[in-house]
């Protein structure tokens, strides 16, 4: 997979390194900005409130009351 990407990047070695770095930074940014905040509520650290609705259906309570 990574070899395939490397082979398909244009330019010489230095240009490829530069493009790869940009790609990696972009992916990390997308993860931190969108993917992780979306995935994080599925973990239990968010459940700090006492709420009857939150007990059985923790992940699906409306309004994020978990």
């Amino acid at each position, binding site marked *: *997979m*990574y*070899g395939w990407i490397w082979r398909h990047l244009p330019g010489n070695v230095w240009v490829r390194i530069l493009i790869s770095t940009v790609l990696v930074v972009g992916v*990390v940014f997308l*993860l*931190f900005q969108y993917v*992780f905040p979306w*995935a*994080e*509520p599925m*973990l*239990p*650290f*968010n*459940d*700090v*409130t*006492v*709420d*009857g609705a*939150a*007990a059985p259906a*923790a992940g699906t309570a409306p*309004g*994020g*009351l*978990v």
Partner: protein
Amino acid sequence: MALRAVVRGLSELCITAGILIVLFVVHLLYWTGLRADSASDNEIDRLHERWAAAPRDGSAAADEGRAGAPSRREREQRGRDGETGPAGGAGERRAGRAQQQPYRDGRSFAVMYIPRFGRDWSKPVLESTGEQTLRRGLGHYTRTARLGGKGNFAVAGHRRTYGDPFKDFPRLRPGDPVVLTDGDTWYTYTIVKRPYRTLPGDTGVLDAVPAPVNKAAAPFTGPGRYLTLTTCDPEWGSSHRLIAWGRLDATRPASEGSPGALTR
């Protein structure tokens, strides 16, 4: 050759998954903390700006006049309950003004100080306990009493991640002050019991007179002005909740400076 490609593909997949997990842990442990700390500081700064722009002390007299009737009724009520205490004037004044300025969902309205958690521990209190709200500070349970009001003022906060506001929750002890200000008045609540561990469905702890499932844990017998703090337990889990209760001990106009509990 085909086998080699499959093995290489699998290896790369495993490495990718490992990197993803490490990145996610970094996100949880550090990034959410950094984001939450700056969000909390922003909220507190915004509150101070708002309070500076619209000092509400000047309007207190007028409000007191308007709140006259309800506060007399409250006093009688309190007489019947046989409850006495210094939680007087300002709280009633606030109660009288309660109808005029309802808390807005997701907006901060107070700052909480808990000296037990550290000298410089301060967090904004926002309305509602939604996910997005709790990422910026502590959340006030919408259906519970107002700050300083009659009943139960209940607040939830993260134990871990998002700045770890309630990390030291189990260290709370009876007598610990919990100080809040809404820019108008300082409210000093005093913790009355060691944190009580319960199940997530134990909503009675938020009642005006807290009524936990475990009757023996009930902190109060009659109505009053109470504070409830909730967070999760164990630290990284969600199987239980920790609850701390306090009672309003003193109020003090903001113009007279911060209360003794903060300067000791």
